[in-house]
């Protein structure tokens, strides 16, 4: 869990779930429907085919407390198409996201925007008389900063992909940092949750 400071100063408790699913029609609707039914908000979502054929990986960022997250993880795992769920700890994961934005760029600001894009190691992907379209790939925090600074020049349109994440490679030992579900074939008391979830 991490507290992410969004560009507007709002702090949200985020969890990253990496969900490996069978790539079948309706699987995204099943996953998304489950979140909706339990009243949880999906902050961002990225879906694409995974390493093995017939599988997709869904990276879901949710803003919930840890207790209901345990319940929703268990409920998610009941979906027949869900094969594995890993809760990724941001401290031991690599996260990436892509942002593209068209920003107002009259002549007097254009130089500043180009400079800003260069500082962030972004790209300018289209140029017109009064606007630029720029892109930036990187850690979501970096994108937040970039978006905030870009905002000062007037954003015409902006799209972010939502984050994708994988556990960091642990060079010292085997294995990696993801907390997987189910932890073992049977839950132990540490993997259960307290409180009420609906």
């Amino acid at each position: 869990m991490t507290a992410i400071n969004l560009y507007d100063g709002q702090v949200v408790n985020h969890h990253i779930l990496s969900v490996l699913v069978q790539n079948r029609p309706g699987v995204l609707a099943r996953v998304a429907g489950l979140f909706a039914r339990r009243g949880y908000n999906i902050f961002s979502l990225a879906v694409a085919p995974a390493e093995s054929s017939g599988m997709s990986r869904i990276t879901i960022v949710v803003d919930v407390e840890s207790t209901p997250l345990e319940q929703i993880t268990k409920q998610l795992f009941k979906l027949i198409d869900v094969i594995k769920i890993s809760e990724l700890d941001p401290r031991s994961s690599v996260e990436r996201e892509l942002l593209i934005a068209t920003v107002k760029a009259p002549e007097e600001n254009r130089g500043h925007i180009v400079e800003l894009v260069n500082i962030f190691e972004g790209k300018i992907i289209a140029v017109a008389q009064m606007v630029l379209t720029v892109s930036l790939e990187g850690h979501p925090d970096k994108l937040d900063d970039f978006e905030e600074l870009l905002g000062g020049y007037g954003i015409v349109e902006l799209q972010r992909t939502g984050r994708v994440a994988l556990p960091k490679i642990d060079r010292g030992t085997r294995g990696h940092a993801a907390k997987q579900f189910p932890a073992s074939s049977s839950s132990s008391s540490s993997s259960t949750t307290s409180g009420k979830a609906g």
Partner: protein
Amino acid sequence: MTERITGAQALIRALEHENVELIFGYPGGCILPAYDPLVDSDIRHVLVRHEQGAGHMAEGYAQVSGKPGVTMVTSGPAATNLVTPLMDAYMDSIPMVAITGQVGTAAIGTDAFQECDTVGITRACTKHNELVMSAQDIPMAVRQAFHIATTGRPGPTLIDIPKDCLQNEMTWTWPTDEEVLASLPGYRPNVKGHARMIKEAARTILASERPIIYAGGGILKSRAADALRELAELIDTYVVTTLMARGAFPDEHPLCIGMPGMHGNATAVTAMQKSDLLIALGSRFDDRITGKVDSFAPDAKIIHVDIDPAEQGKVRRPDVPIVGDAKYVIEEIIKEIKSLLAAGTVQADTSAWKSKVSGWREQFPMTYEPAEPGAPLKPQYCIEQLSDLAPEHTIVASGVGQHQMYASHFWQFNEPYTWLNSGGLGTMGYSIPAAIGAKAAKPDSVVWAIDGDGCFQMTAQELVTAAVEELPIKVAVLNNSYLGMVRQWQEMFYDERYSGVLLDQKLPDFVKWAEAMGCVGILVESPEEVGPAIEKANSINDRPVVIEFRTDASELVFPMVPAGQSNDELILHPTQQEKAGELS
């Protein structure tokens, strides 16, 4: 050798391979091709009067037979009519396979005649569903549907089959078990509980001075009634049986203290509240059991045995969580307890607790006041008489409301699989079709539907099905002219401001209606008529019987824990209220 057959033939053959004997169904445009090979099959088709009835019949059949109930209907409105029984089966973990027709693959998404997004609509009320897109996929879809419906925590599954997939030819194959498992890599229910947790459970049980076994519907699903009895007797511990578990432990057994919860009996509710250990076996801490969760059984440790990992900690954090099949886990706990006892562990002294609980049981039996001469019948009296006069192995299905609670309170349940009701969803109209399904599963057993006048009017038309298909159930309508449970709440919590609860004191004429549907109709208004009418009904086996009992509208279900309140706030029957202080 490759055999080419149509998708429809493959569907019916696949159902035969799954040992389906009976389909409750209703044909229509898109499912039409599947009805043709049915003519040549040994599978019996019961033609219902409404698709909802088909679903509840499949549920009743499944609960009594232990086999999945099967229903087959067409697309569009037929599929939407199945939503209620699917949700009912999902809430009560009943294995059921629904087959729905769908418009042809080319028409999907065009708002074609009788098209609806069946898998979309039923996603939240099935354990799994699947839209088949090729005739070749039908056998695997059927195998998966039966496998998923009947394993792990049972539940309903649905296969939606477009009309062209039924008409097209395919090469017949029957997938092997290995192929089915390989096709479902994300589905591996855990049957065996964790060995370390089972040991921990055994130690915790032997150390408890105030244990209670909290037996739920999972006992019946896993066929664990014998194991439950052995455990209860081994540790000499009182058992409560939830609404879903009535009959899982015999009411006549000295260790049975009845049903807990909102309308539970005082002993069961209080024993749970005061216990130091709840041994939850296939039960899920439903809000109707716990009342206000924060004050539920505050001193109790929890051992929670459930096959569904998501039930662990959903409501109450267990001290000893065990994910596994109830029968398997209970038998393992018994072995573990026996070996601990053999090794010299001594069970904690529970005698003070036992005498306290048995004292409550003597002081606070289920009770009601007999009717004054000339006054309407007491519903409880009717249920007592039905139960007393019931032949052995009689099965009872109830609707939802006051009559359901009276049935649970005043029927003596001594055998598993003799009680059917809609516990989770609370579906009015459940009892008649469920009873018909039960009768189809156990034609030699007497099957009573206990219904209210409100419930009866929701699904009564299925009595035509019962008459025509020769499934002669018996129906006891407790007619108080009101939606009794809602009326009770309005009386107790809305200052007796009755709103929208009076059905009618004259209409319908239940006897004429019964006769019009091919049943025997009997009206009973006085206590002396009750026994003879029931005996007459029990003696009729060639057609359904409906007895209308005119009952007292002012009768209330007690005990009662008002919704959202602590189980310590139990309202007793007025005749017991002055002794309430002794429940501590």
